[in-house]
């Protein structure tokens, strides 16, 4: 049988994740999961809020694209099914400790520099902090992977969820040209 794009293409959504809800599995995009305020599986609500706050400051649009749900979902996957950029970057699985320690260091460093919670930073303060963390560990950043590395990883995650979907390609006027659209085969067993 000759395989062409036509008979490979599937209808369906873009980035979809599977959730076990009320005894059944539903498929939602990270953005839809956020809209429904579904419970997180691995992250605490506080960690999720920090991911969305910092991720959206680095890649505008990441929060509404469901960054925290995307990361949370992947953290609960088996390593061989995990889709996080971290699997390329010599960080041993499981990855939840990577995010937990980095977010704690982020909160601690913000507190030390500004005596504030991260959510209370002004835009100027957040920009200055991100500029600093790109280059070296800010004061108070401890017991965590290097700040520039965490910046790189979270930025990559945020770009994935914000720009890696079919809708996002369309918004950039890039034709997706899928052989096999991601919607039907994206799900990871919950």
């Amino acid at each position, binding site marked *: 049988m000759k395989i*062409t794009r036509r008979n490979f293409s599937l209808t369906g959504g873009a980035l979809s994740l599977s959730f076990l809800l009320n005894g059944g599995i539903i498929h939602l995009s990270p953005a839809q999961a956020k809209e429904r305020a579904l419970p997180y599986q691995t992250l605490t609500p506080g960690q999720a809020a920090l991911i969305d706050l910092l991720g959206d400051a680095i*890649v505008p649009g990441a929060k509404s694209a469901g960054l925290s749900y995307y990361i949370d979902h992947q953290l609960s996957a088996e390593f061989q099914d995990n889709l996080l950029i971290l699997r390329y970057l010599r960080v041993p699985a499981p990855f939840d400790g990577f995010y937990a320690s980095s977010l704690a260091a982020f909160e601690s460093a913000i507190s030390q520099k500004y005596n504030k919670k991260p959510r209370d930073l002004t835009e100027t303060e957040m920009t200055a902090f991100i500029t600093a963390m790109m280059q070296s560990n800010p004061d108070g950043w401890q017991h965590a992977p290097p700040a520039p590395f965490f910046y790189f990883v979270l930025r990559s995650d945020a770009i994935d969820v914000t720009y890696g979907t079919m809708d996002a390609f369309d918004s950039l006027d890039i034709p997706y040209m899928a052989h096999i659209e*991601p919607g039907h085969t994206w799900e990871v067993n919950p």
Partner: protein
Amino acid sequence: MTISPEKIDVVIVGSGAAGSLMAAKLSQAGKKVLILEAGPERKLQDLTSSQIHARRLKWAGDAVTEQGAQPVGNGFNSGYGTGGSALHHYGVWPRLHSEDFKVKSLFGKGLDWPINYGDLQPYYDRIQQEVGISGDHQAEVWRPDGAAYPLPPVPAFQQSEIIARGFTKLGKTTSPLPMALNSHEYNDRPGCLWDGWCDAGCPTKALANPLAVYLPEADKQGAKIIHQATVSRILTDKSGKKATGVTYRTAAGDEVTQLAGMVVLAAFAIQTPRLLLNSGLANRSGLVGSYIMSHSAASVFGLFEDETAPYMGPTGGQMLNQDSYDHKDQRPQGFGSYQWMIGLAVKPNDLLGIGGSNPGLFGAKLTDFMKTAAQHFGNMTACVEDLPLAQNRVTLSTETDQYGLPLATVHHSADAASMALWQGALEEGKQIFKAADAREIWTGPLGPMHIMGGTIMGETAETSVTNSYGQCHDIDNLFIAGPGLFPTSGGVNPTFTVHALALRSTDYMLKNWSSLT
């Protein structure tokens, strides 16, 4: 529980480029062949067009610890599952040059291969006819002797045409990139649609990955493949000079002994030496694991006034320049060879995507950049030679897998001359982009590209692990296949050479079958 199925002719460890080819050829010759693949089964229908989904194709087996100043990037460069690394490879298939085989003799650096280009040329020619390489051998003025490509070249889209202006202005030459990617239908495989999803695995068979070419042929000839079968030991007779088979673990954890007349290790450049070291075999030289190499990727990026359609074309590029290949000792700085792959198709996300190219941008500046770059981005990558060093090697870790077998540790720190060559390539790249009128130019960090060495071939048992056929010096019926055999890296993508070497080894096995087994 130990299960002992009946003895077969050949057991092949790994289903990547080399393993799949050898399985096809040996089963075609009537041999009973079994492939043991550590990863899960992949089918064409699994190859979803997504840079995020593509990550499932990369290494997820036993943990590998990486050390050294320039780690080899096992997590990105090694594959996992049917087709191995070749399932996500980009199909850039240039040949090594004559100099690559005699680096030590010609320049007093690195190593020599036990063969020369002339020994391998007929196999390059046979493979390209079977697989169907697209290219223009006359425009490729640097290419060593060989048959014309069977397919016309891949098309050049705006991105590569715009960048090529810079090469031309500086008096440099460009040609179509030789690719194992059908420019039109060939051998019942369709032509490419130029949509840039190569890294996610090509489900249409336009790109010659193992699922498209040699695994279907092996299957047709009766070869079997077992997935999630992790080989733990190579077995030998009492003399230790003849391999008798392997033991492996199934997905359920059962230990299975598979007896075979011939054993082929094609588990890539890290797991093959790990397996030999764990088995305590083929290491009279003490060099099992040594001379691990990885090409350094020198990436140059730019924004252009013209629209570039950077999402069109193959992921590996559209055009080639090898002006800095021959005469390895005549580079402005450093030592070795490199080639430019020009106009790589990009997606917005992932390590090699538009967003990843410029990691210093965030916030509103990133948003603006993404919008502009989606239509005006250009890039090219140099594949830069890495000199072989004995201290760059795979060793056994003190950590073990779930069955108590030591894991692999890989140390790699590039030679200063290789690093200087990489730096020189970046400088040249910036000049080319400037000449092409890029309005913004930047470069990427060093990225490891391909993994080679670790079980090198050579003339003697004292200086190498195998002979030129991949046959272990110490054990006649134990063969190694894949890029681990390379004594030097050259400055070209390795997959075409992996195929040519595997075909040569297979011819040798079949010709000498009775004496080897």
